[in-house]
């Protein structure tokens, strides 16, 4: 609405406000303190001979260390795949109408979340002692197949099982929260269209739940990367932490080898974070990629039609123009 008392300011743009900004002396002081400590820290890194940067550089590229990185990555990847698969299943079961499913899922989470991962890893390492032979069959009935535990569940697979099963309990809770975050109205809309529940889960619910699921799952993956250092409990002895520890003990140089391990963990974490960024972007479709569009739609046709007043919906351009300025928040 135009005010008639507004003085005419010639043509063209209004004069921007020119005001003195608020000063923030506290911020400057804080920044100075941080920079001071950073400087001191860098100085010590560079001048303290005990860091032995030459040793760090040497072992950073050592074949045994690289191999350890490889095993750590493999352990992380496989146990996360196992954990995610189980977690989806557990989350579905938790929502099921079948009380046995719900109860099993709850109990699984209760057990695997409630016992230390270290204990679980030791247990899986001892599986062959507990059950030298594993067979599948009807309880107290005929046996369908059997194998020697030691042949199949070697140290590596015991580590994957231990890490994966433990993690599945945490991920199941994350997935459950994600599934619950999807608006029930959309599920009803899909049902009303004649979609079956499995299709609704995979095509409507999960893709949107992923938006909620991915960030904490990325967090868990990074956590898993470092939890793999516990696999010596199995004992599995090829991962990054074990390798660098072994080298440290052999060379009597613990500090540089700790730094080697830390650098590699940081590198992998950084790569994982980049991956997570892109996955988040993918599953943010329809929400995160449209935030900028919540203001008025910039559309020259819209401006023109809006000036022309209300248009009936038979004219798509006109209707677009009139409503372009009323962007409600979506109902979530």
């Amino acid at each position, binding site marked *: 609405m135009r005010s008639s008392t507004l003085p005419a300011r010639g043509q063209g743009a209004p004069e921007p406000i020119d005001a003195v900004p608020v000063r923030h002396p506290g911020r400057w002081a804080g920044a100075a303190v941080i920079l001071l400590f950073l400087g001191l820290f860098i100085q010590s890194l560079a001048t303290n001979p005990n860091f032995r940067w030459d040793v760090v550089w040497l072992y950073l590229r050592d074949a045994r260390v690289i191999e350890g990185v490889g095993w750590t990555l493999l352990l992380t990847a496989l146990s996360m795949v196992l954990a995610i698969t189980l977690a989806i299943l557990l989350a579905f079961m938790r929502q099921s109408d079948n009380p046995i499913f719900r109860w099993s899922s709850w109990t699984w989470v209760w057990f695997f979340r409630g016992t230390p991962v270290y204990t679980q890893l030791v247990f899986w390492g001892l599986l062959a002692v507990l059950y030298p032979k594993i067979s599948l069959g009807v309880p107290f009935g005929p046996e369908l197949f059997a194998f020697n535990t030691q042949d199949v569940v070697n140290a590596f697979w015991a580590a994957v099982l231990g890490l994966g099963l433990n993690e599945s309990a945490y991920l199941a809770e994350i997935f459950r929260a994600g599934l619950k975050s999807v608006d029930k109205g959309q599920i009803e809309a899909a049902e009303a269209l004649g979609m079956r529940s499995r299709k609704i889960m995979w095509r409507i619910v999960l*893709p949107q739940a992923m938006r909620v699921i991915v960030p904490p799952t990325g967090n868990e993956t990074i956590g898993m990367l470092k939890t793999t250092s516990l696999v010596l409990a199995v004992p599995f002895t090829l991962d990054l932490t074990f390798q660098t520890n072994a080298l440290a003990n052999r060379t009597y140089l613990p500090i540089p080898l700790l730094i080697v391990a830390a650098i590699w963990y940081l590198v992998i974490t950084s790569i994982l974070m980049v991956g997570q960024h892109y996955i988040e972007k993918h599953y943010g*479709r329809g929400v995160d990629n449209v935030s900028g569009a919540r203001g008025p739609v910039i559309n020259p046709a819209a401006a023109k039609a809006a000036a022309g007043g209300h248009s009936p919906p038979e004219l*798509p351009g006109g*209707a677009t123009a009139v*409503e372009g300025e*009323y962007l409600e928040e979506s109902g979530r």
Partner: protein
Amino acid sequence: MTETREVVRIEGVHKYFGDQHVLRGIDMTIGQGEVSVVIGPSGSGKSTLLRCVNMLETATAGRIYVDGELMGYVEKHGRLHHLPVREIARQRRNIGMVFQRFNLFGHKTAMENVMEAPIQVKGQPRAVARARALELLDRVGLSERANHYPAQLSGGQQQRVAIARALAMDPELMLFDEPTSALDPELVGDVLNVMKDLARDGMTMMVVTHEIGFAREVGDTLTFMDGGVVVESGPPREVIANPQQERTRAFLGKVL
């Protein structure tokens, strides 16, 4: 209008939520091409009745037939048997539903929302579904917004996409549950216009709404519900101009 085939037949439907008796014996029929408008105060059971028709709720007693087919059950040897979910899904394909809160799929564009069911449920080839989706979006005046996500659309636009999405399954019957109640007043007209076009094209519609003007203009029947029963039903102009029941008169006095 000549008397035609029955598309909806509701016989003695009751619905309980726990102890709460929400529908108390509803009878209603809707002929092919008819627009049946249901009005009534909040909590009178209008949504519940609509949701019983496409089995989003299961009636506690009574029967509902759509297109002559008993919804949710099959009668064998004089006993009713629950239909398996696959069959219920099949029955629902014939019935489009439009919700008060639009309920568009948030991660899909307007176009993808419309294409989803024809591809996933009917197994239509993508190209066919796409062409049809464009045609439907054009029909509701939104072809230019085909690639927008729901969050980028106004409420009125979202509701029109929702109508297009329901139409994509070529339903025999359309159910509308207060389709304009969540809209800003200036956006209501666009949605009502789309619905009027649909009625003019001969779609059978069951519409729960507070838009008395719509009922008068395109409705064939106006039903007033209160407390889970049909209080009064008849040609909209007659019911509006000359309500027979005190409760109807009181309600119309408030919304007109």
